[in-house]
């Protein structure tokens, strides 16, 4: 066990994967000497050199497109998109190529590409630097999508994502980069050893985690909102409401079974994410939970997300984002039934 920030844990996860497999190659804007604008790749260029840590031309479609080509030739590219809001030039490559190549080739071509995306808000940034676009990828079959909420998951999921034969979008909650936590650096290495390592890793990647046990309400979060959910649970506990917090960890696949199981016990579900509520990940989860646990529910599933506006100026972000008041309000509302 060592103490790491989330940024440090991702860095360590990348390093471990690069040491394990020399086909693992990083590419992105400013990830070399600068170590990325968040310093997540700090030191990797110095240690692995130009051919393993490649600063790219300023073109996201080019980054994803060439990573696809490299993956076809046997590499395992891990690419960085500098900020959430700048992933869209690569949207065509991700949606029509990366996601569909395995299907198109009837299994002949695997594309083990990992796309790292620092995402979500809360850092007082200017436009395009605080967005949560995960739902815009979740609707496209062929992609896996994960988002860690703590250093341990960041470390594990990073190596599992790299070992996974399918493309993985790895959403890193940037406001949590500096959160510290204990990290066991040995477990995943052991998991990945042996022939079924990637399969086990991939299966594990898709599982949710009960972050806090409770019996009254199931509060579902992922990435940046997990900390918020845990805080809300603490406050609710003071009022005598016992909140179970589930950290989804994965958005594709989404472990709705874990949520349904919990919902069947609590009868009440609240989902919170930073992305706009409308047409977000919470919509799918709400629909599935309702489909599968309808007769166990005491109240409708509620969602607490960003509003249906573009991400506003930073001065508004505390109110734009789900905050503790809004989460508790939703908890109160489901508890009314």
């Amino acid at each position, binding site marked *: 066990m060592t103490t790491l920030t989330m940024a440090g844990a991702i860095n360590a996860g990348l390093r471990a994967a690069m040491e394990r497999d020399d086909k693992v190659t990083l590419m992105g804007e400013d990830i070399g000497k600068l170590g990325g604008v968040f310093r997540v790749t700090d030191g990797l260029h110095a240690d692995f050199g130009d051919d393993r840590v490649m600063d790219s031309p300023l073109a996201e479609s080019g980054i994803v497109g060439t990573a696809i080509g*490299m993956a076809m030739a046997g590499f395992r590219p891990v690419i960085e998109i500098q900020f959430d809001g700048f992933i869209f030039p690569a949207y065509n490559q991700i949606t029509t190529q990366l996601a569909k190549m395995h299907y198109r080739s009837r299994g002949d*071509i*695997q594309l083990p590409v990992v796309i790292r995306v620092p995402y979500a808000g809360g850092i007082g940034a200017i436009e395009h630097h605080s967005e949560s676009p995960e739902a815009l990828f979740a609707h496209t*079959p062929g992609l896996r999508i994960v988002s860690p909420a703590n250093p341990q998951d960041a470390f594990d999921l990073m190596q599992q994502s790299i070992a996974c*034969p*399918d493309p993985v979008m790895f959403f890193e909650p940037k406001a949590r980069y500096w959160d510290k936590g204990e990290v066991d650096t040995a477990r995943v290495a052991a998991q990945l050893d042996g022939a079924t390592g990637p399969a086990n890793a991939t299966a594990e990647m898709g599982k949710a985690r009960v972050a806090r046990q409770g019996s009254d309400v199931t509060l579902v979060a992922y990435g940046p909102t997990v900390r918020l959910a845990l805080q809300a649970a603490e406050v609710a506990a003071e009022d005598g409401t016992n909140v179970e917090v589930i950290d989804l960890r994965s958005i594709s*696949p989404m472990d709705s079974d874990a949520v349904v199981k919990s919902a069947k016990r609590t009868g009440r579900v609240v989902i919170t994410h930073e992305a706009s509520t409308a047409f977000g990940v919470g919509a799918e989860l709400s629909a599935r939970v309702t489909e599968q646990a309808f007769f166990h529910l005491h109240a409708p599933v509620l969602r607490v997300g960003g509003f249906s506006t573009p991400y506003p100026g930073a001065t508004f972000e505390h109110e734009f984002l789900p905050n503790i008041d809004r989460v508790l309000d939703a908890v109160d509302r489901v508890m009314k039934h």
Partner: protein
Amino acid sequence: MDSTGPLSTDGLVSMLTHEGVPVEHETFSRYVQNLDAEELRQMWRAMTVVRAWDLEATSLQRQGELGLWVQSLGQEGAQIGSGRALRDNDFVFPSYREHGVAHLQGVDLVEVLRIFRGLQHGAWTPAEHNFHLYTLVIGAHSLHATGYAMAKAREQKANPEQEPGAVVAYFGDGATSQGDVNESLIFASVYNAPIVFFCQNNQYAISESVTRQTKVPLADRGRGVGMPTIRVDGNDVIACRAVTEWALDHARSGKGPVFIEALTYRMGAHTTSDDPTRYRDKEEEQYWADRDPIARLDTYLSARGELSDEFREDVAQEAKALGERARSTVKSWKRPPLLDMFKDVYALPHAAVDAERVWFERFQESFDTEEAGR
């Protein structure tokens, strides 16, 4: 024709006039000086077979056996010329019209029809043929090709004793307007990737004349990023072969990418769904019919007595056999099991797909049960 526009013939590399008369080219002739009559005949054979094939597939579409067909008609010179320059370690990223190159790379053209019969999206194993799948999103594959070439360069650096290889990316005149194609030129140049961009300027992107994509020869796009560029008569199979040999040599030897523009003509419709009478005239079509890539090699070889009747007959038989096999095979294809629809979305299990497959299986069974119960 305008001497500066996209159809200018200025600086067009040519080795066989459209009357079939050979011409020397200062730089490039030496790349083909060792081609003997047998090799030229093989190129004639490939072009002829591919053309016959194309007409056969078109008629299969007309008969309702295929949903669509995309003809390569008229582009055999560019495709066979460039394709015969490829070696074992080279790798091709086609667009969707390169049946000629597919054929040379050993892809069974009959299998290609699975795509156009709606059975599947890809119909051969790229690694077996060093020939990637057709890509329908214009330009997207140019980046894959570039990345593949970047990987090749790394491999070769790690294993210098290995025979070097290069990548060829094929795309059309229309594709040159896509951001992706431009980015691929930039990445290839910056990373000095061993890749040849082979643009078949067939003068049309569906109904749009190439003048909608550019005011200057498309080869200049390569100049914009500082890579060597060549314009070649795309209906001159020998010249296409020569410049591609040069370009592949250049790329394989670590000197970086090359951009080739082959000026050719789409003699058919864009696809069997298209109606060119809406946007171009007979005179133009005739002008290019007179510049047919097969006819001119035919004239050249015939004049030298190198195309015997026996050989012609042999090639005709090959084409006929291919056509017959296509007809019988296509009709014999059964619809694959419905559950195939759920296969290969991911390489490893994914809960959403799995759940839906299970549901679907039960749902289908419920009909069988219902029917059985009646």
